């Protein structure tokens, strides 16, 4: 019964997604398409939650539904192009799509049933991860353990991806600067409500940052949440004030610092002749070494993500980027 219920929720959410994408294809209004995409991300997050992927759901909600939507809206504001009336029907495109779909359907035919506990995925490596996490790392959240320790090199790569995205956006748009005349209109309700909430958001960001070992969360989500506090501030009180609090010019350095913190944490273990990112070298006790390593690495990730996200927001919301 329970399994069918889970499946039912799944299928419902997936059907929602289909409808949303269908509407997004049909609409001629880019603003509507963007909002639909935001909803799409949010429903995806719910789906992840239903599939037991709490960390992923959290990330998707913060990054996909939150940050991406804000970015798309800022881009729309800059381009000013809201209408997109042209439809074009491409036979070749349809052919490619159908071909891809056919290949996928062909491929999944051999897949083990969804949720089958005896599928190869669940028999190899994954059980060892759960066991090793309990023995060697001793934190409850296996995802964090795998992310930061077992596959820490991937996560280093991921941090660099974020950093390179920041560098790319900076190369393309520059940091921009706030338009002095463009103060948002004074709105007492927003001011009163938003002020304490910014504090709440920042505290929540810190909680997510440091609670990642025990529950869903970690550097990525925390970085985005922390940045969203500043983004909210900038939207409500005006960007020039936000830029006074956190100047844009310092952000690329912060992001670089995040990457360097991560890299150096990895390099420290080379000194005691362990391999890169082997946190056992950080302390005499391997378990506390792992704890310390994960903490440092997550801090690096959090810093890099926070500064890059805020930097990208500044780049998109500022003016006069091409001088």
């Amino acid at each position, binding site marked *: 019964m329970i399994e069918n219920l889970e499946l039912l929720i799944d299928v419902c959410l997936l059907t929602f997604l289909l409808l949303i994408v269908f509407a997004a294809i049909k609409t001629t209004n880019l603003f509507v398409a963007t909002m639909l995409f935001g909803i799409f991300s949010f429903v995806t997050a719910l789906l992840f939650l239903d599939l037991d992927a709490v960390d992923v759901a959290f990330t998707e909600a913060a990054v996909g539904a939150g940050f991406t939507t804000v970015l798309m809206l800022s881009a729309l504001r800059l381009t000013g192009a809201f209408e997109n009336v042209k439809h074009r029907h491409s036979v070749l495109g349809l052919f490619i799509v159908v071909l891809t779909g056919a*290949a*996928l359907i*062909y*491929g*999944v*035919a*051999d*897949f*083990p049933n969804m949720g089958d506990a005896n*599928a*190869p*995925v*669940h*028999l*190899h*490596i*994954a059980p*060892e*991860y759960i066991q*090793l996490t309990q023995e060697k790392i001793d934190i409850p959240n296996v995802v964090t353990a795998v992310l930061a*320790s*077992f*596959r*820490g*090199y*991937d996560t*280093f*790569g*991921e941090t*660099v*991806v974020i*950093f*390179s*995205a920041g*560098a*790319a956006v*900076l*190369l*393309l748009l*520059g940091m921009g600067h706030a338009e002095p005349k463009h103060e948002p209109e004074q709105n007492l309700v927003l001011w009163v409500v938003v002020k304490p909430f910014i504090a709440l958001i920042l505290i929540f960001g810190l909680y997510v940052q440091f609670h990642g070992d025990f529950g869903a969360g970690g550097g990525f989500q925390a970085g985005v949440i922390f940045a969203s506090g500043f983004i909210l501030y900038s939207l409500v009180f005006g960007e020039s004030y936000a830029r006074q609090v956190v100047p844009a010019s310092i952000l*690329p*350095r912060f*992001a*670089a*610092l995040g*990457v*360097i913190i991560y*890299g*150096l944490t*990895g*390099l420290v*273990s*080379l000194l005691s002749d*362990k*391999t*890169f*990112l*082997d*946190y*056992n070298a950080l302390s005499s006790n391997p378990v506390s070494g792992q704890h310390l390593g994960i903490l440092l690495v997550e801090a690096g990730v959090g810093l890099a993500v926070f500064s890059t996200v805020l930097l990208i927001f500044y780049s998109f919301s500022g003016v006069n980027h091409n001088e």
Partner: protein
Amino acid sequence: MTHLPVLIVVAPLLAAALIVLLNNRKVAWLITLLTSLFCFYASVSMLEILQEVDVISYTLGGWKAPFGIELRIDALSALMLLILTGSALLVSIYALKSVEKEIPDKNQVLFYTALLMVLAGLIGISITGDAFNVFVFLEISSLSTYALISLGRDRRALHASYQYLMMGTIGATFILIGIGFMYVMTGTLNIQDLSQRLPAVADTNAIRAAFAFITIGAGIKAAMLPLHQWLPNAYTYSPSVVSTFLAATATKVAVYVMIRFELSLFGIEFSFLQIPFDKILVILGTIGILGGSIYAVYQNNVKRMLAYSSIAQIGYILLAIGLASQAGFTAALLHIFNHALIKGTLFMALGIVFFRFASAELSIMAGIGKTMPLTMAAFTIGGLSLIGIPGTAGFVSKWYLVTALLDASLWPLALLILVASVLTLIYVGRVIEVAYFRPTLKGESQLKVPKTMLIALWIFALSNIYFGLNSDISMGVSTLAVNQLIGVAS
């Protein structure tokens, strides 16, 4: 020195971050140069280590292989490292003046950051032993590449970059789908572990689909002919330094991904016996050679001409792999190496032309053989090597390819190589004719060509001749790599 495998990736990544932290143009260049020097040193010393051991394995985080991520350097990876770091070193010497000229001051620091990240990404792909890690590093290099391409002076650079972003992302996502399909059937991501577990489930739709998706994904990144649309614009409009570095390395790394997945992961038996992938490769390769060469003949922008020529060269490599013989594989790897030298030379020479005239149109090059003798002489060497004149690197790989074709008694294709060489002669000949036998245009540019650019160019050009006359190194590594590949598969 046991940590070289990881330092070769981490050094450029940390250097990229350090550059941003210091935020100074000259220092940025210096760090880039030193980092690529270090990487070159590291790759050469790892090549030396590989003379004694089969494979250098490095487990990250202290977790043993299928649990942690493993770096795995065999002769094939070492060959790629040599190409990547060698080109990076020369390009960073060349970059000093070229970047000063072509990139606005405020972007120069970030330019070097992005360049180092492309390098690190490509190195990371070449040495990783983990399938998913390939995707991560692919994206590191791609994202920075998009930014670098968009820095071209022409507004079309922006659109070219966007096109590449779209196709590149689709390609990367296809690779991700393929990796997922393999993962679901085996439960592992480690390439070594996968290759051991795949045979048990090889005869399933899922694995065949995985194969198709990875091939198409890597094919997009490699600009395999029907999937090549992004490449000509991207190479034509990007800054000289970028087009040189990309032409010498980027598509080759995609071909490397293809070889790595298809030969060492799926195995020769699966790729060539269970599904007729060799035949497909031969067909795609042939189309690529002919299509690329014919397109190239009709171009009036020399950069674009060379871009199409690159597509044709990818065709040669794919054709050679498709022969599914030892000789064929050797020819493919040799051509990967030699083509890097050739395109490095040609694009660098063009970059110098661009430096003086801010254009790479054929018409602008009238008579510059007399005014820029050193540059055009190097261009000619590269061109001859591209055609495959004896005594140049291009000859060696084409010779091996033709021999391999004859061994497989595919003489019509061997004839086709000759036809393609004639086509190459035509398009290279057009440039050389214009440069040497047309009167010089009036309004000659007074800019002096900087020495650093010429030095880098000539090292590239001379290496064409060196590896044409003495192919011990390239041949040795290629043969070793092929033996390992076949050994792994059997």
